[in-house]
């Protein structure tokens, strides 16, 4: 398993496609907490998968003014269709070119498989990692850790 960036580290900046013709940078979100969820791939076969779960819990994240972002190595066209089919109400970033570049910076890339780990980061409003968690790749880590981390952020 990888070693993900620990709490206290400055979250590496990135700028990735959020739609085929738009990019999103981490620095654009400065001033509010960001939840960064790396996941292996769109279209996982189970219902109630990780992204579907976060979609249901968005209102809880929003109580902390937090921005939820999913990241995988899938391309933005794939993300667009996945997001549409699952009615996801948060952005999915494409760590597609160079493949896995951002995931590697966060220690959340599986070289042997060529896709992301299931890794979670809560980044504080100043751009520093407040909490991180690496889940076994087959296990949906749920959201209890994220909520607890958001609650523990200094106001």
């Amino acid at each position: 398993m990888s070693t993900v960036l620990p709490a206290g580290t400055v979250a590496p900046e990135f700028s990735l496609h959020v739609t085929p013709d738009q990019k999103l940078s981490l620095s654009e979100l400065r001033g509010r907490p960001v939840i960064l969820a790396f996941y292996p791939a769109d279209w996982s076969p189970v219902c109630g998968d990780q992204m579907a779960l976060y979609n249901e819990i968005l209102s809880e994240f929003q109580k902390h003014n937090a921005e939820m972002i999913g990241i995988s190595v899938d391309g933005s066209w794939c993300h667009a269709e996945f997001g549409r089919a699952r009615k996801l109400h948060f952005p999915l970033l494409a760590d597609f070119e160079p493949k896995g570049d951002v995931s590697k910076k966060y220690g959340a890339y599986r070289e042997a498989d060529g896709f992301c780990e299931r890794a979670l980061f809560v980044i504080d409003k100043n751009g520093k990692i407040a909490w991180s968690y690496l889940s076994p790749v087959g296990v949906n880590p749920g959201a209890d850790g994220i909520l607890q981390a958001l609650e523990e952020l200094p106001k």
Partner: protein
Amino acid sequence: MLTPPVSSKDHLQGDEKSPIVLVEYGDYQCPHCGHAYPIVKQIQKHYGKRLAFVFRNFPLNEAHPYAQAAAETAEFAGTKGKFWEMHDAIFENQMSLAVPMLVELAGSFDLSGEELVAALEKHEFTAHVKSDFISGVRSGVNGTPTFFINGHRHEGPFEFEDLVGSIDMRISRDEK
């Protein structure tokens, strides 16, 4: 761990003081929960009076358009003392889940369909279902169904043998 613990606010079958308390977080429209439904019945039969069963709502509304209405219908029936009848009937008719079907089920239990429709429209039970959902999130529920045995999350598959294995292990640990 299960947060909050089982209390009188829960829908419980059996005796709250049973040595085994099995809690399911479920979604009435989730096919995996439909699969688990007869298994839970088997588990209840297997352990008899030694086991109490609790059902809490965890509807994934974006994925399952009727899950919320179904959960609210069961809660509505619960206020009339018919929670388990409705819970069972919804799972037994999961393939044809829709609002008119829920109204029909209400009728079959001598509950007013009009009252049910009004309760759904006024979102009378929405907050209750939501609070179940949030408790699930806090307890580490990551999909449906998720089972807890005496407050501890059951991991992995949930076929009859898996749940029995997990329950027996929990009993032997609790007895130590």
